[in-house]
């Protein structure tokens, strides 16, 4: 367990050191959110109708940001070889990386999500659900993103490739999360969307590490 916590601490501090950690992701999130009214029209009633959805979309995009470096840096400097040889199974190592990624960028983004949604015109009563959905959804974004990052190890066009691999897999969490927020705003039952989001996230957290470890072993072989 101490090896695990040491690894988590290492990944967490690396995530902060990696280009400003949450600050960069938050800045990106603010930029995308402020572009949205410029692109979609700034009339309050149009904007309010799509506000939760836009905030959710910006969240999915912002969680793509630092993925490229998640495995690439350790792969380049040989740390990934050492981690693969270490006492912790590679599956758990990969899961820890994603968990640290989520703590360093996903959780701050989840706290910023209601601010973005309200700034775009969503009702204030939506804020708690937005945070909750963004926390759960961010976890699946982190694990699926880690899967994409590990699969593109050893390729040249890393960043774009990760986005192309990962965005189709982001479809269910985007639909479930935005659906729950939309249903809440309309006064409809919203719990099913949140439960489906949680189920998808649980599956991603359980299964993605297996794929990540297989991809890392393949890249190291």
């Amino acid at each position: 367990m101490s090896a695990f916590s040491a690894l988590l601490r290492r990944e967490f501090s690396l995530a902060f050191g990696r280009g400003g950690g949450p600050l960069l992701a938050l800045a990106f999130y603010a930029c995308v959110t402020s572009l949205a009214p410029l692109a979609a029209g700034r009339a309050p009633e149009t904007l309010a109708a799509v506000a939760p959805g836009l905030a959710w979309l910006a969240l999915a995009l912002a969680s793509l940001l630092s993925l490229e470096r998640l495995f690439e840096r350790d792969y380049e400097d040989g740390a990934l070889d050492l981690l693969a040889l270490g006492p912790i199974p590679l599956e758990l190592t990969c899961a820890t990386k994603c968990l640290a990624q989520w703590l360093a960028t996903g959780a701050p983004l989840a706290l910023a999500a209601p601010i973005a949604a309200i700034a775009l015109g969503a009702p204030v009563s939506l804020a708690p659900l937005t945070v909750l959905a963004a926390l759960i959804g961010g976890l699946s974004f982190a694990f699926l993103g880690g899967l994409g990052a590990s699969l593109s190890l050893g390729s040249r066009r890393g960043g774009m490739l990760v986005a192309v691999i990962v965005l189709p897999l982001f479809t269910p969490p985007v639909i479930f999360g935005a659906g729950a927020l939309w249903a809440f705003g309309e006064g409809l039952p919203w719990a099913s969307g949140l439960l489906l989001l949680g189920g998808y996230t649980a599956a991603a957290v359980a299964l993605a590490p297996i794929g990540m470890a297989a991809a890392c072993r393949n890249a190291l072989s």
Partner: protein
Amino acid sequence: MKLPRALDFLQNPERFMTVSRWLAPTLGVLAAALILPALWLTLTAPGDYQQGSTVVLLPIHVAAAWMSMFVYACLGGACFLALVFRQVLADAAAKAAAPLGAVFTALTLIIGSLWGRPMWGTWWVWDARITSVLILFLLYLSYLALRAAIEDETKASRMASILAMVGLVNLPIIHFSVVWWNSLHQGSSTFGADDGDSLPTVYLVPLLLMVLGFMAAFGSLWLVRIRGEVWRRRARAAALRAAGA
């Protein structure tokens, strides 16, 4: 993995080349023999009382849509065999199947769009079935992109195999997640439909012929592409040997 003698050609490249040499053209002829009458029957069928002559497009659209999913299942299965059992032919088969599947998926979207313009009054809607087919198309593209982006061929094939299997697990989830939306696309009218909705025989027969024809065409093209891949690998091995000697 031990296969019965009759299926041995699926894992032995030598036997595969001898079998596919006659199987590929045979399937090609069979495809032509099925698709041409299917087209003729569709074109001569009476226009639907609601859809008019645009009903002609439907057999092609539905057959391509089924193929787009069938080919992804083939791709996922081949990737599984390539990844877990290290089957060389399975890897070649996966590589060969992906572009074909992407073409079937694109065909589904394009024909559906051409049909949708006169019938629904729009080229495109963000409806459940259409969106899930579009995402299937993106999954094919991401497989091809990943495969192309990694230089080391063995590594590229394993990475792409993992991705294809992840996609296989995700496909039903993606499908049902988009079904969540309200949709414009009509439900299935072939299997398990109510009596009023089920397809009349004049359209059902060409549809089934078209599906079988597309299957045969896919089988033929798949075999041809796998043969090409086997030849390419042999040529590369020969070039390496020549360089080494």
